[in-house]
C-alpha cells in the first residue's frame, strides 16, 4: 500500500469506519512508515480537539444552512436550535421530528431521497469495490478455479450461499472468491476473468437490485449490470465490453439454480 493511497484510509481508521482487514493493513503500514505515523498522530490530535467540544458553538449555523438548502426554503423558528444540536445521530434526526408540519415534510423528503439513492449508492459502492479489488493482493481471499472450493469457503462468512458457477468452458475463467463489504454489509464477491478483464460478481440478499430484469449502466468507465433473482441480488462490474458482459450475465442468470421460493 502506497502512502498516498493510505491517506484517505487514515481518516477512516480514526473515524472507526474501517473493517478489520483494512484496519490491519493500515496499521501494518503505519508501523513501518514514520511519515504516515506522524500524519496519523496529528490527525488524531485534531480529531480529539474537535470532538472535545471545540466546534460545538459554530455548528448550528452550518447545519441549519445545510438543512435549509435541503428543503430549499428558509425554515427559521421551526425547530429549536437546541433540538438540532446534540452530538448524536439520534438527536440530529430527532430535530426534524420536533413537531411542525414543515419539519415533518423535511423528514419525509429526506427519507425519500435516501430511499431513491439506495440503488445508486450501491452502484457506486460496487464500482469502488471492484476498483479496490484490482489493487495487488486484494482480488481474492480464496484463489482457485474449483467452484466446489469457492462455494463452501463462503460458509459462515456471508449469510447466503452464493451460486458459484464454473464458466471456464464459455471462456469466463473462475479465479476465486472474496469477502467484500458493500453498504456496510458483508457480500460474496466471485471473481472471473476473460482475457485480461476482471469481472467481479457481487451476491447478497439485499443489495439494492429490485428488478428481475437486468439493469445496465456505466459508471466511471466500468460496465455495471444488476438484477434480482431467486431472492438474491446480483451485481456485475467489469471493464469488459458491454455485449460480452451481457453474455456473462446471461450465462450466470441461466445457471443459477432455482429454488422453490423463486420469485
Amino acid at each position, binding site marked *: 500500500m502506497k502512502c498516498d493511497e493510505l*491517506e*484517505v484510509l*487514515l*481518516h*477512516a481508521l480514526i*473515524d472507526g*469506519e474501517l473493517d478489520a482487514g483494512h484496519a490491519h493493513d493500515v496499521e501494518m503500514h503505519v508501523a513501518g512508515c514514520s511519515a504516515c505515523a506522524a500524519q496519523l498522530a*496529528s*490527525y488524531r490530535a*485534531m*480529531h480529539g*480537539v*474537535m*470532538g472535545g*467540544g*471545540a*466546534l*460545538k*458553538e*459554530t*455548528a448550528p449555523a*452550518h*447545519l441549519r444552512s*445545510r438543512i435549509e438548502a*435541503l428543503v430549499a426554503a428558509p425554515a427559521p423558528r421551526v425547530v429549536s436550535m437546541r433540538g438540532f*444540536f446534540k*452530538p*448524536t*445521530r439520534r438527536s*440530529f434526526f430527532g430535530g426534524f421530528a420536533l413537531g411542525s408540519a414543515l419539519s415533518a415534510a423535511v423528514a419525509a423528503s*429526506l427519507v425519500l*431521497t*435516501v430511499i431513491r*439513492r439506495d440503488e445508486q*449508492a450501491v452502484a*457506486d*459502492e460496487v464500482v*469502488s469495490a471492484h476498483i479496490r479489488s484490482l489493487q495487488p493482493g486484494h482480488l481474492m481471499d480464496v484463489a482457485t478455479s474449483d467452484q466446489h472450493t469457492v462455494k463452501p469457503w463462503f460458509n459462515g462468512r456471508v449469510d447466503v450461499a452464493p451460486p458459484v458457477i464454473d464458466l471456464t468452458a464459455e471462456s469466463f475463467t473462475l479465479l476465486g472468491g472474496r469477502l467484500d463489504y458493500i*453498504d*456496510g454489509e458483508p457480500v460474496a464477491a466471485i471473481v472471473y476473468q476473460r482475457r485480461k478483464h476482471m469481472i467481479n460478481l457481487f451476491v447478497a440478499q439485499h443489495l439494492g437490485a429490485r428488478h428481475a430484469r437486468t439493469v445496465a449502466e456505466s459508471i466511471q468507465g466500468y460496465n455495471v449490470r444488476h438484477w434480482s433473482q431467486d431472492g438474491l441480488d446480483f451485481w456485475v462490474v467489469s471493464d469488459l465490453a458491454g455485449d460480452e458482459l451481457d453474455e456473462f450475465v446471461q450465462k450466470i442468470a441461466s445457471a443459477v439454480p432455482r429454488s422453490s421460493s423463486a420469485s
Partner: protein
Amino acid sequence: MILQQQDSATIRRLVAELPAPFREAIVLREINDLSYKDIAEVAGVPVGTVMSRLARARAMLRSAWNASENTTVRSGPATASGTAP
C-alpha cells in the same frame, strides 16, 4: 483553560473558513458524530466522496492551523518566563 479556549476559537474560525462541502463533511462527522454512510445520505454523495472530502477538509484544517499557530507564536505574548525584554 485559556489556551484551550483560544484553540477552540481558532478551530471554529478555521472550520468556518472551509469551503461549504468540506465544512459540511467535517461538521457532520465531528459534531454530529454521523457515520460516513449517514453523511453520504445527508449530503447526497457517494461514501467515497465523503471519505475524500473529510481527508481534504482535515488536511486543509491542519495546514491552516499550522499557519495560524506560527503567526500566534510570533505575535502573541511570550509564554516562557525570563524572555521579557
